[in-house]
């Protein structure tokens, strides 16, 4: 009987230079404070010695192109590479210096994929997609110099309309929980992505966030009101810039009915940063 031994969600540009450059000293200090908290969370995570780490995150049109955008994609295969971007700017530079290759937990990845297809989740599978900052910035911050356990990367299409619904993301999380429960492994699950930023994916509105919406979302997570969270509409997510909450929706499904504990919440103006843990142990 497997179980979820650790669960958390957090912002995924854990890179002080990015916020220093785009927001100023206030942004740099806030993300440094978040990074310190995520490192503490990483010590807790590592102490659970998971057999596998499921990472639910989105693609920033780094891996998938307009040729095909999967609603959900499970990374299978034996190993997964870090994305390489020549002359990287901004958040892609957060990948510099990280290990070039990570193990994939093949058995768990295949189980999520195979059993998902049987259960009616038409997942895409990839044997080659590399990982960008959405995966590796949190993983590297959590683990530091400790060895990273085998990963199961799962992509959610957060940005290219039409996205999967919040309800469907939640259902995928319930599916992952069932696979873990039926398997022999101790598994950690994290979801990544910012709270509100980049409303409407409009360049003209870069710099705006929606703290009122984010405070409401955090309260719902603390209350484990997953019905309300799964009822969020594509319109609400798009208008507030909360696209990446779809990753978190998968996690809510995986940990339900656990309540969230807020480890960090910061209103930066450009984005609201957060890190939360769920009591699953």
């Amino acid at each position: 009987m497997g179980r979820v031994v650790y669960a958390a969600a957090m912002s995924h540009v854990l890179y002080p230079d990015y916020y220093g450059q785009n927001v100023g000293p206030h942004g740099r200090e806030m993300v440094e404070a978040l990074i310190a908290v995520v490192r503490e969370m990483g010590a807790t995570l590592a102490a659970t010695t998971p057999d596998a780490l499921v990472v639910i995150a989105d693609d920033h049109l780094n891996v998938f192109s307009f040729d095909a955008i999967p609603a959900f994609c499970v990374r299978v295969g034996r190993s997964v590479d870090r994305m390489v971007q020549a002359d990287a700017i901004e958040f892609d530079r957060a990948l510099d210096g990280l290990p070039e290759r990570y193990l994939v937990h093949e058995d768990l990845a295949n189980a999520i994929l195979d059993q998902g297809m049987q259960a009616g989740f038409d997942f895409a599978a990839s044997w080659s997609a590399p990982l960008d900052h959405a995966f590796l910035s949190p993983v590297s911050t959590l683990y530091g110099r400790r060895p990273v356990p085998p990963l199961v990367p799962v992509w959610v299409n957060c940005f290219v309309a039409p996205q999967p619904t919040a309800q469907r993301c939640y259902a995928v999380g319930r599916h992952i929980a069932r696979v873990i429960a039926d398997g022999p492994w101790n598994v950690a699950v994290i979801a990544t992505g910012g709270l509100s930023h980049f409303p409407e994916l409009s360049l003209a509105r870069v710099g705006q966030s929606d703290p009122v919406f984010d405070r409401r979302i955090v309260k719902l997570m603390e209350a484990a009101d997953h019905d309300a969270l799964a009822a969020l509409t594509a319109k609400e997510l798009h208008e507030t810039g909360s696209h990446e909450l779809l990753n978190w929706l998968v996690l809510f499904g995986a940990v339900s009915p656990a309540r969230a504990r807020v480890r960090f919440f910061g209103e930066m103006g450009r984005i609201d940063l957060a890190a939360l843990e769920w009591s699953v142990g």
Partner: protein
Amino acid sequence: MSRYETNVVLYRLKKDQAFRDRFRADPRGSLADADLTAEERDAFARWDTRKLNELGGMLHLLISIPGLGSH
């Protein structure tokens, strides 16, 4: 409306350094074969990122093209 082609060009600009170099040297010439409207072609030539975004160009591509992306 060629939202697809706009994003194909943006994706190539991010991922293909040789294409990016050609674009920077000669924007209109490098896009001669692209299936773009006159409005899209003009926005690329002027590197008007807000216009490209309004025409369907994805924000995350527009802000992350080496040497061209900006917030």
